[in-house]
Structures are given as structure tokens and as C-alpha cells.
């Protein structure tokens, strides 16, 4: 029974990791960009939600609605002014630019908000739980997981049912030919990064309400997110959700044996999956 409970908690934790990873997966799938600043951008979004919630005295769930468009704009600007300039066959420049960005954001937040850990307070909902047969589920973790499923579903709808999604897929498959058909890859990329940062804002909401955060925790979140993306397979959003769940369940199982083994078991699950399937569980694109 303990095992069922542990796995369920791991599953819900996996939802949070999938939220961290969904934006990353989108950007990686469309433009092969590895954004090493993604974790720090999530933390930045958490501070943005916190700032809006405190300044306007709003509930975090409302503040996120104001934060999301700001983050979209930031993503758009970031892509058009910085990242589009370094995308190319050589993977080194985008890696190093986003790595630089990560250090700049992390230390900028440290200067602005100090190293004190903060939390988004969501009120009584934080302590509520539902009983499902043998297991008890926290409402917030459940909400996190359902949001992850909803985000992945929405992104998939966008990807496969809209004109923008068609442009995404076309650019992902062959940017040059897509250009011949009247698509401007730079604009498509800017949209993608904007959407990725909206997803990052949603992730930030659940990260911030679930536990304390401070400016230094971005890189660790980035690592879990990347593990989810890579395990899931390049370009597959449902794969990313599955990857997040694999990491979450592995961490929960490890933690149930010894709390010190939580993160270690997640990493080991990542290594094992890649040893067995180097291209991840559900690879969509060849790359």
C-alpha cells in the first residue's frame, strides 16, 4: 500500500517536472535550441508572480494571468534580439549565450531579491486533500499534474491543429523550404519562445506554491526538465510528460528508501533509460 502511495506521489511530482520541461521541449523540438537559462527563467517568472501578487494584493492564481503576457513579451524579445542571432549549425554559440544568460538572470535576481527563500501563498487550498480509495492526494499536487496534462494537450492541439502549429512543424522539419512557402522562421521562433515562457510561468506558479524558492535553484530545475525532455524523446510533448513522470516516480521511490537518494535515483533512471534507448522513449524527429 505504501508502494502505491509512493508511486502516486511520484506521478504527481512528475507533473511538475513535465511543466518545467514542456516549454523546453517545444523550443528544442522546433529550433534545436538548448536553452540553459530555462530553469532561471522559471525562477524569474516565480518572482514576477510574487511581485505582482504583492504589489496589487492579488491571489497568485490571478497574478499569473498578468505575469504570463509579460513573460511572453520577454520571450519574444529574447528570441528576436539575442537567440536568433546565434542559431545555426554550430551548437556552441547558443549553448554559451544561454549559459551566460543563466548566470546573468540568476545573479540579477540575487541582487534584486537577496538569497532569502520566498514562497507564493495560495491560502487554504494548499492544505486541502482528496481521498481516492487507498491514497490521499493533495489538491495542489493534483492540480499541478492536471495542469501539466492540460498544457501538453493544449500545446499538441496548437501543434497539430492550427496554422501556427503547421508553421512550427514545417520550420522544425526544414527551415529553408518553409521559408520558400512564405514562413519567416525568425518570427516562428519568436512565437515559440514566447509560448515556452508562458508555460514556464505556469510552471513557476506551481513551483512557488508548492515549496520555497530562491534565486539559486534554477539550474537544478533545468536539469530535471532536461532529463524529462531527453527521456521523452526529441519533439514529442507527450513523451516529455512521460519523461517527467519517470523522473518523478524514480525520485519518489528513491526518497522512500532514503531521503538522500531522491535526486540520485532520478538521475540514475535518466542514465538507465538512455543506455537502453539512446533516443528516448518516443522520438518524433530524426536528429
Amino acid at each position, binding site marked *: 500500500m505504501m508502494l502505491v502511495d509512493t508511486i502516486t506521489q511520484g506521478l504527481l511530482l512528475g507533473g511538475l517536472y513535465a511543466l518545467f520541461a514542456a516549454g523546453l521541449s517545444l523550443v528544442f523540438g522546433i529550433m534545436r535550441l*538548448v536553452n540553459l537559462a530555462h530553469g532561471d527563467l522559471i525562477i524569474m517568472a516565480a518572482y514576477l508572480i510574487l511581485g505582482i501578487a504583492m504589489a496589487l494584493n492579488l491571489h497568485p492564481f490571478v497574478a499569473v494571468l498578468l505575469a504570463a503576457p509579460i513573460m511572453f513579451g520577454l520571450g519574444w524579445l529574447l528570441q528576436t534580439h539575442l537567440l536568433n542571432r546565434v542559431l545555426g549549425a554550430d551548437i*556552441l554559440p547558443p549553448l554559451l549565450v544561454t549559459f551566460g*544568460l543563466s*548566470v*546573468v538572470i540568476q545573479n540579477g535576481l540575487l541582487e534584486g531579491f537577496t538569497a532569502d527563500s520566498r514562497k507564493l501563498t495560495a491560502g487554504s487550498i494548499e492544505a486541502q486533500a482528496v481521498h481516492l480509495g487507498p491514497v490521499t492526494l493533495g489538491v495542489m499536487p493534483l492540480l499541478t499534474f492536471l495542469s501539466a496534462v492540460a498544457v501538453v494537450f493544449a500545446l499538441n492541439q496548437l501543434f497539430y491543429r492550427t496554422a501556427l502549429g503547421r508553421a512550427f512543424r514545417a520550420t522544425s522539419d526544414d527551415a529553408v523550404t518553409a521559408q520558400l512557402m512564405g514562413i519567416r522562421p525568425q518570427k516562428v521562433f519568436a512565437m515559440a519562445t514566447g509560448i515556452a515562457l508562458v508555460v514556464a510561468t505556469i510552471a513557476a506558479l506551481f513551483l512557488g506554491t508548492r515549496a520555497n524558492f530562491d534565486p539559486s535553484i534554477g*539550474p537544478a530545475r533545468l536539469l530535471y526538465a532536461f532529463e524529462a525532455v531527453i527521456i521523452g524523446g526529441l519533439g514529442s510533448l507527450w513523451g516529455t510528460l512521460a519523461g517527467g513522470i519517470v523522473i518523478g516516480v524514480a525520485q519518489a521511490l528513491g526518497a522512500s528508501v532514503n531521503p538522500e537518494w531522491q535526486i540520485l535515483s532520478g538521475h540514475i533512471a535518466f542514465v538507465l533509460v538512455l543506455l537502453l534507448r539512446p533516443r528516448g522513449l518516443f522520438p518524433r524527429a530524426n536528429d
Partner: protein
Amino acid sequence: MTPTRTAGLIAAFVGLAALYAMPAIAPRAVVQDLFGILTLLVLAMNWNMLAGFAGLVSVGQQAFVGIGAYAMFAAIILLKLDPLLGVLIGGLAAAAFSVPMAFFAFRLNGAYFAIGTWVVADIARLAMGQWKALGGGTGTSLPKGTTKDMVGVETIKQVLDVSGAAAADALTYWLMLSLAVVLLVASYVFLRTRMGLGLQAMRDNETAARSVGVDPLRLKAWVFLLTAFGTGLCGALAFIQITRITPDAAFSVIDWTAFVIFITVIGGIGSLPGPVVGVIVFYVLQRLLADYGTIYLIVLGILGIVVMLFARRGLWGLFTDRTGIDLLPLTHRPPRSVAPVLPPTKRTA
């Protein structure tokens, strides 16, 4: 030999002699400062070989620093060996760790490789935290007086007429300086050989390099193994000076990899003098902005981004382009006699 190269070589020898003389003429604080700079330089030269020449963008170099340092601590505390032997063991342990790491990470391409190495380094950090004999997660210190009992410290103490601690500083400093010099010379010699040429050919165009018989996997594996050895030695030596180890400090991605990446990029990735220039810029920045907390990190990050946007070959690349001076050139002139003399052809267009 051109006049600039002769002048450059003479300047290099004079500078090197001055650096070796430092423990005898400068105060201990200067020697310790220089030791810190040299540590970063050695790490940067190793990373430059990996990323700048072999195309292996690793974000997991802290794995080798940490493993080297932990192996050195284990050799001293558990096996009661001399610290200098411990340093060698540290290097070997890092090299040994690089083999299974390569088997895993080499399956991953490009960006995946960066993340994969980072994850492996984090696994090593967490695993070392479980090593209770070396203090687990809270770490441990070297036994008191360990460094003063190192081979050679007693002699240095008498010759320079300094305290035991200063003599230990001098010894580790000379070793780090020698490691930097050996690494620079070895890199130059290696890159001028057939294998080195193959490595650069592979970086520039892997398919073309393979078509003329370069074996990319073998070359990359060698570079990965050797730089792991160098990074491990450097990490072990650095932690003799620090005398205290924790998993978070020994496997710090910021201290041992992020700084190193920025130093290499700003100085000039893919050139041998690049890391030297970069480490000087880093040190000056750190000094100038010492009173403003983490501002220097922000400046460093922005500088790294600017270099990637506007001058991909870094400050050294800019300097060579402007002046034509290249102190450690890696380019080869095409052989004159081999090129066939083409008969003049009629232009049709």
C-alpha cells in the same frame, strides 16, 4: 623564425622565470592569488581542448575536479599516503571515471552531451555525499599539518627561509605552474601532430575528415580521457590548498565549469593563448568589482554573450585578426611542390 615569434618567445621565457621566482620574492598572499589564477587557467586549457578542438561541449568538468579532490583526500586520510602521491592518484581516479562516463555521454550528440555530462557530474556529487568515511554530505578536512609534511616542503622551508605553511604554498604553486606549462606545451605539440591536425579537421568538417581516414571516436575518446586526467590533477592540487572538502564545493558547477567556460570564450575558444588572455580578464574583473558582490558574475555573463554575438574567436582572435600576430599558430602552410601547376585555361564566361 619571424622576429615577432623570437620576441614573443623571449618575453614568454622572462615571464615564466618571473612566475617561478614568485614564492622567493613576493608575499604569500600574492602566491596564493596566483595559485587561484593558475588553477582556473589549467581548467580552462583542458576545457578548451575539449570544446574548442574536439567539439565536446562538456558542462560536467566539475566531476573530474571533485573526483580528483576526493581521491586525494581518501589517499591521505584513509591510506595515509603523501599528499603529492594523493594528487597523482586524484588525476588517475578522474581519468578512470572518465571511461564509464564516456561510454554513456558519447552516445549523446551535441547539446545532449552537455546535459548528459552535467547529470553524470551531479551523480558523482550525490554519490560522494554518501561516502561516510570522508564526512558524507558535510565533508571533511585534511588532518592538521598534512601539507607541512609533504615531500619537499622541508627543503623549501630551509632554502627560502619561510614558515612551513608558506613552503607548502610555494610547492603547490610550483606544481600548478608546471602543470600549466606542461599542458600548454603538450597541447601545442599534440595539435601540430597528425592526430592534432585530424582533430581540428574533424571539428571543422567531420564528414570530410572521416573521408580522409580520421577516426573521430578514437580521437575524441583520447582527448576526453587526457583532459579528465589533467582536470583531476588540477582539482586535487587545488584542494590541497583549500584543505577542506564538501561535495557541493568539490563538484560546484559555477566554480569549476561556468567560470572556466567564460574564461575560455572571452579569451578565445579554439586558440591556445585564448585561456591565458581570458584568465587575465577574469582576474582583473573580479578585482575591480570585488566590492560589489555578484556584479562581476553578471558582467562576466554579459561579456560572454557579447563575445559570442560579435567576436566568436574571443579577444585573442580579435588581436590576431588586427595585428596578424599569432604566438602559437596552429595553421599549416600548404606544401608548395604538391600543388599541380594548372595550364592556363580559356575563360568561357
